[in-house]
């Protein structure tokens, strides 16, 4: 391989290689970031992730406290333990950030996302889709003679599983909100 083609971050000699070779375990973490609800705040947080090369697996944001002027950003990210620590430190030092909670390490949490599935089909496929929807406790929120729109809430894994089952039955479109999460208990 030509020396100039060495991929960034892979060269053991590279000053950009920040990762400990003994800790190359990629972990997935769900972070709840409480921020000031002001214009540009999402751009700030996303900009941090893109500028420093961090992953965003899922992202949701909405105002959660109108009077207190606060929004909650739930971001699912993945990286080595060192990168995850960096992400949290980088988020915490932002002026608009009030708190960063790592729901993955701070104890058990509830994670949910909402998904909509459009499934087109006739005959047996249509019946099978309805039957599976019942098992998954998905609701029909729109129907034509040739299609359904199902609505479902669940963990990302449950949403993935339902989508897999719908695929052969005529799944043509999926919309997902991304994960919202809260710590369990008081």
């Amino acid at each position, binding site marked *: 391989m030509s020396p*100039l083609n060495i991929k960034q971050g892979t060269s053991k000699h590279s000053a950009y290689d920040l990762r400990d070779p003994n800790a190359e375990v990629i972990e997935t973490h769900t972070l709840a970031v409480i921020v000031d609800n002001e214009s540009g705040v999402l751009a700030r947080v996303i900009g941090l992730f893109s500028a420093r090369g961090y992953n965003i697996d899922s992202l949701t944001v909405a105002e959660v406290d109108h009077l207190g002027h606060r929004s909650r950003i739930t971001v699912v990210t993945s990286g080595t333990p060192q990168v995850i620590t960096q992400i949290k430190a980088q988020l*915490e030092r932002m002026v*608009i950030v009030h708190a960063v909670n790592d729901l993955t390490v701070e104890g058990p949490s509830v994670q949910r996302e909402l998904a909509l599935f459009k499934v087109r089909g006739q005959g047996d496929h249509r019946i099978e889709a309805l039957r599976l929807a019942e098992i998954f406790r998905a609701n029909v929120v729109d129907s034509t003679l040739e299609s359904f729109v199902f609505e479902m809430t669940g963990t990302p894994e449950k949403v993935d599983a339902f989508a897999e089952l719908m695929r052969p039955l005529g799944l043509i479109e999926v919309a997902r909100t991304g994960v919202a999460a809260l710590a369990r208990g008081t």
Partner: protein
Amino acid sequence: MTRQMTGAKMVVQALKDQGVEVVFGYPGGAVLPIYDEVFQQNDIRHILVRHEQGAIHAAEGYARSTGKPGVVLVTSGPGATNVVTGIVDALMDSIPIVVLSGQVPTFMIGSDAFQEGDTVGITRPCTKMNWLVKETDKLSETIHQAFHVATSGRPGPVLVDIPKDVQFATGTYVEKPSVQTGHYAPRVKGDADAIAAFVELLETAEKPVFYTGGGVINSGPAATRLLREWAEATGFPVTSTLMGLGAYPASGKSWLGMLGMHGTYEANWAMHDCDLMINVGARFDDRITGRINAFSPESKKVHIDIDPSSINKVIRTDVPIIGDVAHVLEAALDLWKSRGRKVNREAVARWWKQIDEWRAVDCLAYKPGTGTIRPQHAVARLEALTKGMDRYITTEVGQHQMWAAQYLGFEEPNRWMTSGGLGTMGYGLPASIGVQIAHPDALVINVAGEASWLMNMQEMGTAIQYRAPVKQFILNNERLGMVRQWQELLHGERYSHSWSEALPDFVKLAEAFGCKGIRCDNEADLDDAIREMLAYDGPVIFDCLVEKHENCFPMIPSGNAHNDMILGEVDTQGVIGASGAVLV
């Protein structure tokens, strides 16, 4: 007490309340109301630059030499985009800067109006925080908060974008003390357990070294005093990054010189071989560490930093202490004293014996000249002839910058202004003006290379206008010296675009600007020429024609470890391997 006033008046009032004495700026359509207010008062001095980039570098020089925030006032669109380089520079080097930019009126934002630019969008990733103020009632509060954010915690640049209609409209002025600075309050006190762990380590260390950085200087005079007390009391050696020069005096007996890519042999070997590294306000920059997995393999590392994101970012630390340098050094010192001031004197004496052997290599020695001025010699003579003077040094970026760091001695902090993290060519001349404005009677010298200097040479006009007697000491090798050096070392001596074929006559240029020009091309005349520069009461452009092919040594080639330095020309064959070549 509340007062009604226009937004433009609020800007000036807020600056006064923040104790601002000088603003560096350039007017334009979207800031005219503010300039009208600047015109009608005498408390704040406005320095008119020749290009907005000059304004922000001047503000950086002002800030770094005083410890106070630098303030910049520019117009919308190109005015704002022209300060972006300086904003990134200030972010990388943690310099407190407040940029106030004009913006098109709120009702025209997003319409591609004349001189409209998405200033908060463009500067979002390179400021510590920025604001677009859409209501006059929020303006004074925002400016006060901007100063709070710029100067607290790890300092940095902030920007407040002010639409023109907000400047014209009337609103309520909020006084500085009553402003809620919000939740932003970085921690300054270090964790007691971590400080105790640090003290325990240093009591038994056999080969310790203090590795100090810009954080010591940013922390303020107390941090410098405490560092010196620590070095004095323990006898531990001290080295520093480029940004930290002056915190420990160059004449101090524990001083090893600067470390890093062009640091001294003894400093880099001490870093490599130490058993306890005490990082005080430095950030393990890649110019410092060299090859990460060969960086100081045997040492325990203590890292004192006010920014939690600096901890374990590059190098894993055994004892991280998050807090302000002065607070942490003081708490640790008190604890260490109360535990009986223990140090492993015998082992540290052996360590010094080893360090003295490295020192004996005399890595900064250079061959005597043959008439042609060697650039190292020019800087060494400048040092000798200005020793003891009330002296401030700025630099541009390149070989001359490294020679200045190697051959000039800094006895006090805030005397050395250089673009470290970003490496901005064109920084030094405007920075020297900012320093001179802050210290009108001091000797301010910009040690420059001719290529860097040309990047912002228009600012000589500013120096003349404000009678800032800055001395531009240009080491002229008619080359982009550092680029040329790298091309020699790793691109087969193919000097692609690293020389200037059409340089101006710097003496005539000086005359054209209305200042003094001096040219020196001979070693024998050098001292007299430098004396002539120092004696002249006004700005000087000193064209020092130096050896064209000199390389800057010592050098840790990219991808090498600290104990793998090259000291001179004979060592340079094949020093940078394939994997090092991809690095900068």
